């Protein structure tokens, strides 16, 4: 199992007011992970653009930031996807859009298409900033899924690299797992017993995963397990929001069909209302 999943990081570059903040976030992450940064620009190459980027990234020179600018014309979604495959990019950084008037973030249509089709991990940023906002609390999913072990391991790796102190593993459990429906005191009691049993089972499963992770990553971290009975994908976002998490780490969905978009589940819920920065691990 590789502990450093991110050897190369990609970010789409558009010349917008957010450019500097986006670049700073991406560069900082590249430094933290010791990864190479690819700046992907949809459009013609020009001396002026390259210069501008190098001016912005000047402050990272002392951190030995290794970066490369890629210019390519075409449809933004195709360009970014094809480039990330060509350059073997492990992590793609995308920015979120804020809904007018209200403080809610969602993923724009281009970013959403990329998220759905990308074969690498995706980081969705809600508030890129030039100054570093420390990442203190990471929420990671603990679904019963083959990918989960890798996800939790990577979460601890990220936590170590970003100096996050607290990691909460949320085990989302669907309501359908409980056979009893609450009607009266008796069925309520039975439901609660069933829930407790499932919680114990889930907790021991996650603890087993944690015990496989090298000690140096887990020590000095506050680890919390929180089972939640609720809608998959939605509850974890809601939890991340109320627990004021700085980063939410999730498994990438197994497969997406047209129907999944009509009846949103798992990742789609997160895309419509981003609770915080979200890292989707492939």
């Amino acid at each position, binding site marked *: 199992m590789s502990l450093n999943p991110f050897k190369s990081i990609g970010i789409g570059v558009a010349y917008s007011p957010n450019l500097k903040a986006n670049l700073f976030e991406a560069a900082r992450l590249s430094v933290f992970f010791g990864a190479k940064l690819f700046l992907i620009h949809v459009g013609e190459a020009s001396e002026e653009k390259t210069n501008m980027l190098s001016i912005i990234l000047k402050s990272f020179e002392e951190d030995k930031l290794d970066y490369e600018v890629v210019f390519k014309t075409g449809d933004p979604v195709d360009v970014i996807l094809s480039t990330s495959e060509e350059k073997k990019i492990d992590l793609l950084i995308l920015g979120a859009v804020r809904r007018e008037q209200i403080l809610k973030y969602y993923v724009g249509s281009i970013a959403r298409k990329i998220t759905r089709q990308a074969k690498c991990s995706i980081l969705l940023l809600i508030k890129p900033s030039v100054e570093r906002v420390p990442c203190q609390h990471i929420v990671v999913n603990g679904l019963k899924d083959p990918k989960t072990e890798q996800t939790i391991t990577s979460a601890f790796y990220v936590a170590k690299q970003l100096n996050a102190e607290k990691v909460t593993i949320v085990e989302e459990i669907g309501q359908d797992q409980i056979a009893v*429906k609450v009607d009266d005191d008796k069925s309520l009691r039975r439901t609660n017993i069933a829930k407790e049993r499932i919680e114990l089972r889930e907790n021991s499963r996650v603890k087993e995963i944690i015990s496989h992770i090298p000690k140096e990553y887990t020590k000095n971290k506050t680890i919390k*397990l929180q089972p939640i009975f609720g809608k998959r994908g939605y509850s974890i976002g809601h939890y991340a929001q109320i627990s004021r998490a700085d980063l939410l780490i999730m498994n990438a969905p197994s497969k997406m069909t047209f129907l999944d978009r009509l009846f949103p589940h798992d990742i789609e819920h997160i895309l419509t209302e981003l609770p915080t920065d979200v890292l989707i691990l492939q």
Partner: protein
Amino acid sequence: MSPKKNNIKDFFKTLPKNIFSGFVVSLIALPLGLGLAMASDAPPISGIIAAIVGGVIVSVLGGSHVTIVGPGNGLVGVLLVAISTLGIESAYVAIMCSGVLLLLLGFFRMGALADFFPSSAIQGMLAAIGLIILGKQFHIMLAHKINRVDTIDYLMEIPNTIYDAFHYDDKGLIFAALAGVLSLAIMLFYSKIRNKYLQLIPAPMWIVILSIGFSYYFELILHKPNPIAQKYMVSGIPSIQNIIADLPVPDFSGIWSFPFWASVLALTLIASIESLLSIKAVDKLDPEKRRSNVNRDLKALGLATVGSGLLGGLNVVTVIARSSVNVNQGASNRSSNFFHALFLVLFIVFFSTQLTRIPLPALMAILVYTGYKLASPKIITKMFSIGKEQLIIFFMTLIVTLKIGLITGIIAGVLTTFILHLIINRNLGYGLFIRNLLKPNVLMFEEQGNKGSYYVSVKHFCSFINYFRLKKHLDAIPEDQDVIVDFSLCDFVDDTVLENINSYQELFAKRGGHFDVVGLDMHDTETKHPFSSRRLLPVPKIIKNSLTRRQTSMETLAENYSLEYNPKKKKDTSFLNSFSFFRTKNINHIYNKLSHKQNAITLFDIEFSEGEFIAKEVVRKSMLHIDLQFDIPEFTLDKEGFLEKVSAFAGFKDILIENHDDFSNRFYLLGDNKAGIAKFFNDDVTNFFESNPYYHVESNGNALLIFGKERLASIKEIKALYDFGKRLKDVIPSS
């Protein structure tokens, strides 16, 4: 969680009490059943049949514990329409069909149905039903039968009827109208008179007894015919043989018509709403704090309705007033519902001819009172205090219901509410409701490492449309645990939700849990009422500057005895919940509080209510509360009297204290821990009670509650009560 009990033994132990309360309830059910059936233009006996069939079936198959079923007020309006358009034979078929639909609702677990309606719309609908009942029966109450098409016409005619009533020439009519007015007076003033012998028989039964007595007085003593006009006497009560012989033949011919299915839908809708609301209200009164299985109850009610329709009875619904009387009389399980049905059978078998001695106006007075209670002006002032927009919803529903019909009315209410919500929240964007309608916006989890403490967070908006999601999660929490509901991520919370949240708070408080609401401080509201949409934070009532004379005397009393006096109303009465006296009562608030810093004695006036709806009585009393710092056995001590002897017969056991015959004879002592109580009542304590005035004294394990009269105490009585408490506290053994 309580350990498994010996159910059969318990059942037989509580059986006498349940038989007794079943009897008392049947005393109300009889006149109400007759009246409601007649108000619906159905044969009077059909109401009784509904109560009997319902009582038997629901008590066996139902899922609630202390509810009573029978013909309901809410259905009068729908049944009237059904019977007048379809004819009585087809109406029975419609009743059966609605029973099948109710059964299906139960099977599809639609017990949450009643949660989808905004509370103002339901209030408006109930008020409309109240007006339908009141409008029609008012004229009969004054012996002035008229026939109009529209309910509004009936209401408009009320002044004419009153005018006519003063100008009757016919003696029969005058007597009939007098019977009506007297009966109305009994209904109105019954709850004001607090005499325990009088209260033993419910008001509607007093009306029946008095009017039958009146008729016998003329027949046996004056040897004259009953002066009340014959056409204003209850007629058409068949004997039991006739009921069985004349089973109605259901007429299936009209079942493919539109009005038929409109009636079926309306019957189902109203029957389920009325039942579900009643079950919810009665659950709060249940002394054993059980949770009703509403879906199972719906199935049982559906089956009972089918049976009732088949035998020529009306729809069977759970009824609030009768259920609350049932709880107050000490019912503890469904058998009281069964016995209420059984007693009704006995009444019909043995007294069916006596029932024709009841004057119609007297019976209708009961219904006029019911109608008035449903549409009382108090409801409108309450609506107004919550917010002006509530009045729009209320009147919209009310007027459309009266003008067109119940289903259209409630739909109009729902739509109006939704549109008003859109208008109120226009600054948040219309997308708020549409985009988030289908999202699972409620998160609930038990905090790890903090057993029995739940956190619920609600996102986006929470109104009557998506309240069911919140409810589903709240229902999954046992009521003796701690819950925090966080609305800080919620842009809009409406009054329906806040009202429901409030009843959850009461429920949790009664059952030993805590239910806190946070995150509404940032929200803006229209009015200061706690249910006003968008925010909670109950604001203390505007301080009244002028104190009453009693209050100023209490103030001086407080100064003289160096006590603290606080005239303000206080809603936090959780310290009283564990006293068995309040188990079946709703405490509204305490006020005029006198307290002492050191000796933990507080004296206060309290307002609480017993029963619900027409059986509701608001009571104010003065009480003394002593907070002991140590544990004592739980007990209740009262004066031994006739009623206690009766209830002893019904299953309560008086505890006798050895060597204190005088005490044992004069006092009535109740409690579970007999040995502990016998030890507690040592020579000093018994001597103290023997040589002092009588008070009702109750212990909840670590505090005492003492009160005397069934009313507020005068200043002199307050002094006496305070003195009694102070001396009692010194006598009590502190171990």
